[in-house]
């Protein structure tokens, strides 16, 4: 167990690689109750949501969610978030655990609208059921028609007899669901989901597998790819910034930041070694950038990572050197995501990362 921003959480239950493979090939269950929740309600809830976050909340339909970001006025990240539209006057926002108080204060301080901002984390536990057998597993426990829930949509429906918000979202690059329930029901649901998934070889998964899975899918992790000194264009997240939607916090700074000097790029190790978070990246004998996340990819059986490099070099095929313990080790930049899940049935939407 590790202390993770005040939460006592397992890095692994069995083996990170086994857990990772269970999610890619069958199904895995994550307890992500540490994630924060903030709710915005009121006649101008939408106006507040569109003012504090970069994506266009007015485009969401009731029952739909999208990936978005909270920015500072200077354009750097406060956090990356998932915004769910519950109704015209109610938005439910899932935020990173370590940022939840900061995010809440940030939104509240910017609330000059007829809206209420509630810090709601204590009302929700969150379980993530991820993998090609996630649907079959969860379907055994709910009357909701899970196949009818499109990628990045959600329904409020009981799981067993527990009221739940069931969202077809995730942080693994696989199909799956994230469900929000009252904390006192989480343990029972955890046990029941593990039981339901037994026939598929379900595994409980920890933070370690969560990280290797999201890295293969090139999903950003706050504190690594995105920080207060990185803006969405640099992070290759321009698609969650809707410059045309009207004023929002950070817009002015971003208007001057298009065509950034540095960009996030994927790399694969060529030489022996693993490029890890914080290591320097050199080009032509000089420091050129840094690794934000790196490690072994169990699916590809390669050592992969993400790094910031000058935008002119942040294209696939550039030879670089990662400084590993003061020794340069050869690597090459590659296209991302490293892993994209195979499309299996026509009713499945999007790729590894739907850009809806």
């Amino acid at each position: 167990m590790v202390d993770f921003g005040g939460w006592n959480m397992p890095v692994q239950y069995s083996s990170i690689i086994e857990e990772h493979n269970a999610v890619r090939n069958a199904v895995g269950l994550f307890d992500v109750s540490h994630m924060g929740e903030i709710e915005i309600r009121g006649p101008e809830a939408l106006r507040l949501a569109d003012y504090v976050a970069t994506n266009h909340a007015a485009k969401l339909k009731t029952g739909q969610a999208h990936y978005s970001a909270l920015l500072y006025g200077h354009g750097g990240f406060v956090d990356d978030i998932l915004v769910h539209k519950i109704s015209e006057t109610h938005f439910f926002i899932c935020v990173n655990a370590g940022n939840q108080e900061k995010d809440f204060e940030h939104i509240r301080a910017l609330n000059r609208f007829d809206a209420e901002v509630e810090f709601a984390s204590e009302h929700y536990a969150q379980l993530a059921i991820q993998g090609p057998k996630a649907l079959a597993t969860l379907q055994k426990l709910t009357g909701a028609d899970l196949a009818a829930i499109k990628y990045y949509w959600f329904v409020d429906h009981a799981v067993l007899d527990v009221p739940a918000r069931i969202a077809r979202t995730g942080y693994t690059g696989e199909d799956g669901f994230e469900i929000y329930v009252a904390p006192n029901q989480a343990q029972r649901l955890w046990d029941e989901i593990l039981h339901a998934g037994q026939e598929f070889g379900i595994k409980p998964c920890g933070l370690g597998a969560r990280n290797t899975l999201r890295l293969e899918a090139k999903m950003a992790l706050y504190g690594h790819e995105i920080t207060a000194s990185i803006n969405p264009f640099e992070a290759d997240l321009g698609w969650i910034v809707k410059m045309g939607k009207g004023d929002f916090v950070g817009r002015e700074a971003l208007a001057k930041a298009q065509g950034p000097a540095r960009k996030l790029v994927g790399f694969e190790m060529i030489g022996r070694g693993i490029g890890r978070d914080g290591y320097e990246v050199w080009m032509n004998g000089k420091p050129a950038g840094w690794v934000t996340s790196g490690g072994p990819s169990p699916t590809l059986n390669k050592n992969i990572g993400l790094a910031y490099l000058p935008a002119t070099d942040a294209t696939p095929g550039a030879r670089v050197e990662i400084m590993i313990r003061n020794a340069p080790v050869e690597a090459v930049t590659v296209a991302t995501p490293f892993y994209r899940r195979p499309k299996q049935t026509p009713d499945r939407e999007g790729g590894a990362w739907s850009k809806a």
Partner: protein
Amino acid sequence: MEQSMNYPNSYKYTKEHEWVHAEGEQATIGVTDHAQEELGDIVFIDLPQPGKPIAKGQSFGSVESVKAVSDVYAPVSGTVIEDNEALKKSPETLNRDPHDGGWLIKVKLSDPAELNDLLSAEEYQTYIGAEKSE
């Protein structure tokens, strides 16, 4: 979770979780079962080439799990005679067989008396028992 594991009595151990098995002036060095259990899946091993000197207490290589890099410290001083080439190709052997097939290097000891400073199997197991219950 913790499997009962045999810590050979003929080996010596360090508080940094290395083991050393000395036979005359030669010794084999590895990391303990407890260490591999704590690290999880081992995916990469960095070892010094034969001919390199190692110095007691200094890092001579690294063992990487999925999550993190860990230095390996020399329990004794000497010169590397051989590194475990097979282990570099199959690092997961260290998880399965830490006290035998997962050995890291063989060295020629420069001061066999250094072995006297190390922990016995019993002392080491008491030490990790106390560390775990903290």
